[in-house]
């Protein structure tokens, strides 16, 4: 693949994307339009995240790619391979050793540091999209800070279900200005959005980039009497006994018995290496 430029994109395109990233960092939570390119993987597979990562990478970087929290899901493998080929950067599965982490649908459990960048793949960047399908309207609503519709939606949820019926892609307000879609992470991850690392969000098909600079205030929308609650399955991990990590549910047999395991595979692996053993785990060799 030596015919391609470092990290696939040509330098002009990277410059255009970097400008969008910088603008996004300057106006946290604001969706910056950018001239997204066709990538050699389909829209919906993370082309936005891939373009942001490509524009962010330098040869010294160490890249980690996760999908659903795991390093070895097929699409994470595919994207990691893409950058191994086109950028030749080092890759790692260890959260703490990565300088750039591209993710789909999760924030790693381990706390990130100031020298790390977390890149999100975003399908629908517009938090108001399912309340108002027109981009021309939602852009107006953002510029006027007109978010009443969103509160009405949350209120209607409560009156109908007794709870806010949003479990992932739970909307947040950034620095008391923009309502932002944190990408389809489970709401369990929302409190982690306030972090030391830079967070970049790329939506390729929808041609938008947005960002959260380190330590940006990010508040999940709620009501005083119905406060936001970060929830997860009420079990410890069956492999590493972690009580504080987001769990995947796995069906074990025809009788429908279940086990719960960390969705963050690196977190689970490192805990098992430290000697933690869950209900169905085995002692580390």
């Amino acid at each position, binding site marked *: 693949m030596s015919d391609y430029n470092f990290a696939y994109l040509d330098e002009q395109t990277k410059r255009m994307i970097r400008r969008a990233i910088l603008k996004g960092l300057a106006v946290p939570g604001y969706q910056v339009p950018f001239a997204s390119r066709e990538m050699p993987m389909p829209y*919906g597979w993370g082309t936005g995240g891939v373009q942001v990562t490509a524009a962010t990478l330098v040869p010294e970087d160490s890249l980690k790619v996760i999908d659903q929290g795991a390093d070895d899901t097929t699409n994470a*493998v595919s994207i990691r391979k893409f950058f191994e080929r086109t950028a030749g950067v080092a890759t790692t599965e260890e959260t703490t050793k990565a300088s750039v982490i591209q993710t789909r649908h999760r924030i790693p459990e381990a706390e990130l540091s100031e020298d790390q960048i977390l890149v999100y793949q975003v399908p629908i960047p517009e938090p108001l999209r399912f309340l108002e399908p027109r981009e021309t309207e939602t852009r107006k609503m953002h510029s006027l800070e007109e978010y009443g519709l969103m509160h009405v939606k949350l209120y209607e949820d409560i009156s109908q*279900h007794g709870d806010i019926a949003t479990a992932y892609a739970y909307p947040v307000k950034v620095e008391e200005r923009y309502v932002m879609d944190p990408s389809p992470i489970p709401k369990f991850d929302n409190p982690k959005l306030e972090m030391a690392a830079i967070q970049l969000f790329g939506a390729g098909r929808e041609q938008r980039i947005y960002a959260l600079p380190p330590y940006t205030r990010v508040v999940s929308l709620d009501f005083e009497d119905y406060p936001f609650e970060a929830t997860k399955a009420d079990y410890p991990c069956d492999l590493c006994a972690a009580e504080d990590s987001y*769990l995947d549910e796995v069906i074990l047999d025809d009788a429908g018995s279940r086990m719960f395991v960390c969705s963050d595979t690196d977190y689970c692996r490192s805990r098992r290496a430290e000697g933690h053993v869950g209900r169905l785990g085995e002692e580390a060799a």
Partner: protein
Amino acid sequence: MYVAVKGGERAIDNAHAWLAEERRGDTNVAELSLAQIREQMSLAVNRVMAEGSLYDPDLAALAIKQSRGDLIEAIFLIRAYRTTLPRFGYSAAVDTGAMTCDRRISATFKDAPGGQVLGPTFDYTHRLLDFKLAADGEVPQAPIAEPRMEATPHITEFLQGEDIIEREPASDATPGDLTREPMSFPAGRAVRLQSLARGDEGFILGMAYSTQRGYARNHAFVGELRIGKVPVEMEIPELGFAIEIGEVELTECETVNQFKGSKTVPPQFTRGYGLVFGQSERKSIAMALVDRALRWEELGEDNLGAAAQDEEFVLSHCDNIQATGFLEHIKLPHYVDFQSELELVRKLRREAQELAEQMATQEAAE
């Protein structure tokens, strides 16, 4: 004992190997050459070039071969390749009036300078399976007419002489470039036409058809449909003038549409425009109808709330690479989101059940 799903990498490699084998099919059957696809599947090649936005029949043939004949997949291969190509500049606008026409028909005039030329069309074939083709595809040479030397004028020019059709105001403004700038609305007609020209044939066809059936009807006559080659010229800065760098085959459709007139404009005909790479007749006619429907605002017509009048709706959904990507991505893992929904629904059900039980005990007590 459950082991966290490992081996994604090997699974992918094996899948790719199997895919390659399936693409080749039975090895006792001769392999397709690119030349065969280019020459004998030329309308598929044309569609891939048009919606892939890259005029290169050999690459399109390669993409069709690689994609096992899945044209949207082939279009995607071309788009992904196209975006890596360096951009030297923009060509001069092509002059379709200078086209050497293989086909040129008008539904509005029985005859006009340049004549009606049917060309290689399916129009009057009887759709009977030709079993001879199954055995032997050789054909006798078709009769050859003397080529016309003079240019073929556009039919709409004759209407324009009478001022009975709207004028297309010439403009030197640089049109937007869909592939370099993010789409924003209103997009303007130039970007709209770019988007429709590379839009999915099936989607544009469906939209155009909906206008014919009454959803923002704009009764279109095919004023002219022409197919042929036009030279492409590019200004070379070092030379200071334009030189011909090649030629492309195009299909152009100009529709003549009814218009009642308004307070400021006397009754006159209006236009819809379609221009597509290669021989792509269905697409170019459909494009012209959708273009016309989208022009309701500038022509002072009513918004009837029809889908084909809605620029944001049409342009946001006509690109089949975007559409198929987003549609098909739902087969990727969504364990995490689903898990969060699962827990939410369980919780809501638990609460609903508790409430029902409470009510029941209350009722029993009363």
